[in-house]
């Protein structure tokens, strides 16, 4: 691959305040660089050519994992995938997150890549988004104008496009405690077993406190065409006593309600990227995978909910 051709001005703020001032000044012609393992690839292919690059990787205040029983899990946006994977606290209380991280790319990629960066690049096939959606994850976004909190579910707008304005910075990821009798599973398919997900399904099932009836369910898919909820598929299982037949039906419905990759393709470089992706994987194949992944994730989530 070639090197980056266009020069840019480089800033490396060390505090959130400095980063936000830079973003309010240069955000519309610039890009935020966290780990940059995705962003630099886009720049090297001339798909984007920012005039300003604001490298936030050195803001140590955004590298933290906090938790107490009353509060949610709070993950600083610049926490690396590896830190999240290795955190004893996350392993104990949010084991599904550690499990997902263990299989996210290589050790090298996880050492440098950040959770916030992965969410902001908005890869439709990206790993953390579907799981964080079914965990009811939220994100805190800051700008000089103030802060806002939104669900991760509504953050993903289209392939490679997220709801972040030019002057804004994602600063924190929040994951609430799970309710009793809840089980979560994440299944993905990738070319290499531990590669980034190609397509994936996350399922969270909460059972009734007495009977094995499904009180609450969330299903999220990746590449459908972005990370999104599969609400029709959820309806198949909600309020029922889940069995193998219903799971198979939920998988079928999920594969049908997924959109085609190209339909939401936005403009510019995103359109080009979606074109490349849709050449790599046929629509039919992707849907077939989703069917199986939803079924298997549902099966595992149900088992885990019963044991919880």
């Amino acid at each position: 691959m070639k090197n980056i051709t266009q020069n840019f001005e480089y800033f490396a703020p060390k505090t959130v305040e400095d980063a936000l001032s830079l973003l309010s000044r240069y955000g519309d012609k610039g890009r935020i660089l966290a780990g940059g393992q995705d962003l630099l690839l886009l720049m090297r292919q001339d798909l984007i050519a920012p005039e300003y690059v604001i490298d936030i990787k050195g803001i140590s205040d955004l590298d933290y994992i906090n938790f107490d029983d009353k509060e949610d899990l709070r993950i600083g946006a610049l926490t690396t995938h590896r830190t999240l994977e290795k955190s004893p606290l996350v392993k104990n209380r949010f084991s599904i997150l550690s499990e997902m991280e263990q299989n996210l790319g290589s050790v090298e990629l996880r050492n440098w890549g950040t959770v916030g960066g992965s969410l902001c690049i908005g890869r439709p096939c990206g790993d953390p988004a579907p799981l964080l959606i079914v965990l009811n994850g939220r994100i805190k976004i800051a700008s000089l104008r103030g802060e806002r909190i939104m669900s991760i579910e509504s953050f993903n707008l289209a392939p490679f496009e997220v709801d972040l304005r030019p002057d804004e910075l994602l600063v924190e990821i929040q994951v609430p405690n799970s309710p009793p009798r809840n089980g979560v599973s994440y299944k993905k398919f990738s070319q290499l077993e531990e590669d980034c997900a190609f397509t994936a399904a996350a399922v969270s099932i909460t059972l009734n406190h007495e009977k094995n009836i499904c009180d609450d369910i969330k299903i999220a898919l990746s590449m459908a065409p972005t990370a999104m909820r599969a609400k029709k598929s959820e309806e198949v299982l909600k309020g029922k006593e889940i069995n193998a037949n219903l799971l198979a039906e939920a998988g079928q419905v999920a594969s049908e309600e997924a959109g085609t990759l190209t339909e939401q393709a936005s403009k510019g470089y995103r359109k080009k990227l979606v074109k490349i992706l849709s050449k790599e994987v046929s629509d039919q194949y992707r849907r077939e995978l989703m069917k199986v992944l939803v079924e298997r994730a549902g099966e595992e989530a149900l088992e885990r909910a019963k044991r919880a």
Partner: protein
Amino acid sequence: MKKLLELTVNGEHYEVLVEPKTLLIDVLRDQLGLKGAKRGCDSGSCGACTVLLNGKPVHSCSILALQANGGEILTIEGLADGPNLHPIQEAFLDHWALQCGFCTPGQIIAAKALLDENPNPTEEEVKTAMNGHICRCTGYNMITEAILDAAKRLQEARR
């Protein structure tokens, strides 16, 4: 406009001027003349460019040089002690864990990071830690065996 980059590489302090768009691997290879880390896939998938940055293995092809500013880097050139190879290098030789050698600097650096963190890994742990490293010649059994053997050698050396 070029910016000043300060790095400690294999124990030596360097100050170089770089364009912000310069990748870390290009500073190492072209400006410092350290040709061990390779451009393989050049997109963070093959592991041939792996170096340790502040003790952790990273892809030097996927990082801007300036992002490593102030950091400590270890490349394959910094591993041997003069003419004496590092025990991981010895183990790679003894187990025939390389043929063309293109991927080897990345493999050995990643193995070093694994054994620093986990001095006595299981076979499964070795495979997991090395799964970002692609070798097109040897297959992977000999590499895994070499790393398991290197772990033993390092533990014996510590006794």
